[in-house]
């Protein structure tokens, strides 16, 4: 991949709370904020930090399935509802299932690189608690190949696809240790989320998280190899971040130390109609990460923190291997040795990740960028980890579908 020919930064991140089961304010029987409210809150949260909407040239909004969850299309036209000054400016909606947010980031980056915009307001949003989980599963199944897979698929379509990956992994590398690694991953996620007041699991008070994580899967009511604690929850949330050029930073009056620089990225697409060749590997994610490393010139050993796409514990584990921190079959050891925890070698998902913070599907990629920005610029509050000087870089990996649409981005704090 060619080197980036112009510096690109991200700054002024903001996200709403992740609302859903687990949050004390969540009551499925009571009215909740709608799609527009989330977009407005996140958008205004970013605009406030960059001197308002007049400084914005363009908007990008990432979302997966508002057309079904909220019966709403044409989301690009909701960007002007954030601020009057955004009316009559260009705006684009992008979709790539749970990888929509990553596509949004890349779309904004490309606009800045092209020189058609200096400041791009980038938003990711999903409001999913409008339907019960069993019907939400239908909607999310749209990330798979509808004609080819849905009819023969499971009631809980996506949990089942990743359950199959877990089952294949158990068979190849052993069940016991892998399940213990899942439970540890769950514990790490919840413990991180407890430090971040916007996280969906912020109120989680369970004392023995690993015991809960080890709950035996129940194929009669759910899937074969995963329990509900292995899964991210149903979340309503939005995140926003400004993707800007050097000129954009100046225009917004943002100091370099309050921004992160995008050093490189990898954007990779697999064929939706072709099943994964090896269930125990996230090949597309691996390829995207390799590209991101290649384009940024950053090595894995130089990463100080990672935001990976742990929609399930198994995808967290496979991400560890796809990024290369552990060899194939060695992910469980890496996790059980505590290397991915907030005090370990490379803190993963420091605000809880998809399992702990929440997974507003089409918004997750943008939320990941916000967490990275918070960590690298020292704005992470109680969930701040130390970014060692020898490891000044961060990586985010956002995945859509069963490892189909993947965007990996490498960042460092700007100066």
């Amino acid at each position, binding site marked *: 991949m060619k080197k980036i020919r112009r510096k690109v930064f991200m700054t002024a991140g903001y996200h709403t709370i992740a609302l859903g089961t687990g949050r004390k304010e969540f009551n499925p029987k009571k009215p909740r904020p709608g799609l527009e409210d989330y977009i407005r809150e996140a958008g205004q949260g970013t605009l406030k930090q960059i001197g308002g909407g007049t400084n914005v040239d363009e908007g990008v909004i990432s979302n997966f399935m508002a057309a079904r969850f909220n019966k709403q299309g044409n989301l690009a036209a909701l960007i002007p509802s954030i601020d009057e000054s955004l009316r009559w400016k260009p705006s684009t909606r992008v979709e790539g299932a749970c990888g929509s947010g990553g596509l949004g980031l890349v779309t904004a980056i490309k606009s800045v690189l092209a020189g058609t915009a200096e400041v791009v307001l980038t938003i990711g949003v999903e409001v999913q608690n409008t339907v*019960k989980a*069993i*019907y939400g*599963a*239908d909607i999310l*199944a749209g990330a798979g190949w*509808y004609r080819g897979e*849905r*009819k*023969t698929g*499971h*009631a*809980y379509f996506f949990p089942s696809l990743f359950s199959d990956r877990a089952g294949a992994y158990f068979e190849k590398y052993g069940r016991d240790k892998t399940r213990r690694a899942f439970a540890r991953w769950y514990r790490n996620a919840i413990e991180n989320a407890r430090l971040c007041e916007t996280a969906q699991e912020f109120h989680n008070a369970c004392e023995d998280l690993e015991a809960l994580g080890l709950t035996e899967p129940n*194929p*009669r*009511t*759910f899937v074969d190899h995963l329990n509900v604690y292995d899964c991210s929850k149903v979340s309503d949330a939005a995140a926003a971040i400004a993707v800007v050029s050097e000129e954009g930073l100046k225009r917004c009056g943002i100091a370099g130390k309050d921004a992160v620089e995008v050093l490189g990225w990898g954007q990779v697409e697999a064929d939706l109609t072709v099943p994964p060749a090896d269930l125990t590997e996230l090949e597309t994610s691996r390829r995207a990460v390799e590209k991101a490393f290649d384009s940024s010139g950053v090595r894995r050993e130089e990463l100080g923190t990672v935001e990976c796409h742990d929609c399930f514990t198994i995808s967290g584990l496979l991400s560890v291997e796809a990024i290369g921190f552990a060899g194939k079959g060695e992910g469980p050891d890496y996790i059980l040795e505590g290397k991915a925890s907030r005090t370990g070698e490379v803190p993963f998902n420091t605000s809880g990740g998809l399992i702990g913070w929440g997974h507003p599907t089409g918004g997750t990629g943008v939320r990941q960028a916000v967490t990275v920005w918070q960590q690298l610029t020292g704005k992470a509050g109680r969930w701040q980890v130390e970014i060692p000087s020898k490891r000044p870089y961060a990586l985010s990996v956002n995945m859509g579908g069963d490892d189909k649409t993947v965007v990996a981005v490498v960042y460092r704090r700007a100066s």
Partner: protein
Amino acid sequence: MDYADRLENVAVLGAAGKMGSGIVLLTAIEMADLGLDSANRSRGFALHAVDISEKALSALMKYLREQVRRAGEKKTVWLRTIYADRADLVENEEIIGQYIEDVLAIVRPAIRIEAAYDAKVIFEAVNENPDLKVRLLGGIKSHGRPDAWFLTNTSSIPISELNERVALGGRIIGFHFYNPPAVQKLVELIRADSTLPALADFAAQFAKRLRKTVVPSRDVAGFIGNGHFMRDALYAVSEVERLAGEFGFAESVYMVNKVSQDFLIRPMGVFQLVDYVGLDVCRSILRVMNERLAGGHLQSSLIDGLVEMGITGGQFADGSQKDGILKYEKGRPAGVFNPGKKVYVPLADIAPRGDERLGAPPSAAKPWKTVIQAPDRTAYLDGYFRELAAMKTLGADLARSYGLKSKEIGLGLVKDRVAERKEDVNTVLLTGFFHAYGPVNRYFDGEDTP
């Protein structure tokens, strides 16, 4: 005739009532599930939902539609395999929608008893009135199939009595669901001496397929559930009468209700439960028991008097609680009836004084809901009741006496052989009444009962 043959044609009498609607729901689902099994595709299934009210039957159909959806949502994993050959049903929503259609297609609402004449299984869930039950079962016996089986949901009337009065020759068994049948796990199974073994086998299989916890009860009026509940409630009334001289009626009701709920960690206070079941229903059950059991004095002039005044408790059609001994606002007790003045005294006027008289509950007290979810429930209860035993307050005194009485009633049921074992009494209270512990325990007298 095997299990599926039997269930091809079923009738539920009192189908739109509180118990009947739940029985229709569970039975229709069981019949539909059998029908969806490829082995039974050639069979037809019909459930005749018989009730006297057209309006209530319309409400029943609406209730079924909602409840079958919920049931379908819980077993979508299985339904996807059942409808695997239906190319037109792809999404969960389409599959659940089809399931609702398939279950409802079995149910035929009817206001005439003739609808039950072809049934091979008749569920009886009408009012707890022996003469009414005898009349309805007698009619079906005269005009229906000679091999029809009768399952009665009576909670108090001896099965042998119904068998003899209708001359059913053992074609009847007691199949007592708890309210609401779709939620409560417990079924009391009551065999009369003459009950046909094949019918008993069928009933056991049906309960098992419905995933119910079955407790056998001997065929004695009231069985285990009401055998305990009615005496427990009468004890509470007698305590109120004892305390009323000193504290006044309304305040005594408040105190005994609070002790039974908060001090004894039950899901609701005893008078709230009486109101929930219905004062009129309680009166009918007490009558049935009192007329059939020797030396019981199973009667309450308080309950009789309230029913005569038109105060019945029970629920409105929308499921909300009617006023009874207590008055309800948004489903919660808000007042206590004063029979002298025939008005409800607001709780706010009596609760502070009542609470002061009772004294605080033990410091370890937790709400019932927390206790039943606690993984270490037994250890918690041990500690809680140890603390209660050492307390010298009116509330603790009342609670200990109440706990002892509840145990005495439980042991009495075993002694009278209504229950085979003390565990059966405990199971009924744990699963049918959602108590956090069985009445036969050592919390109040420190004694284990072998």
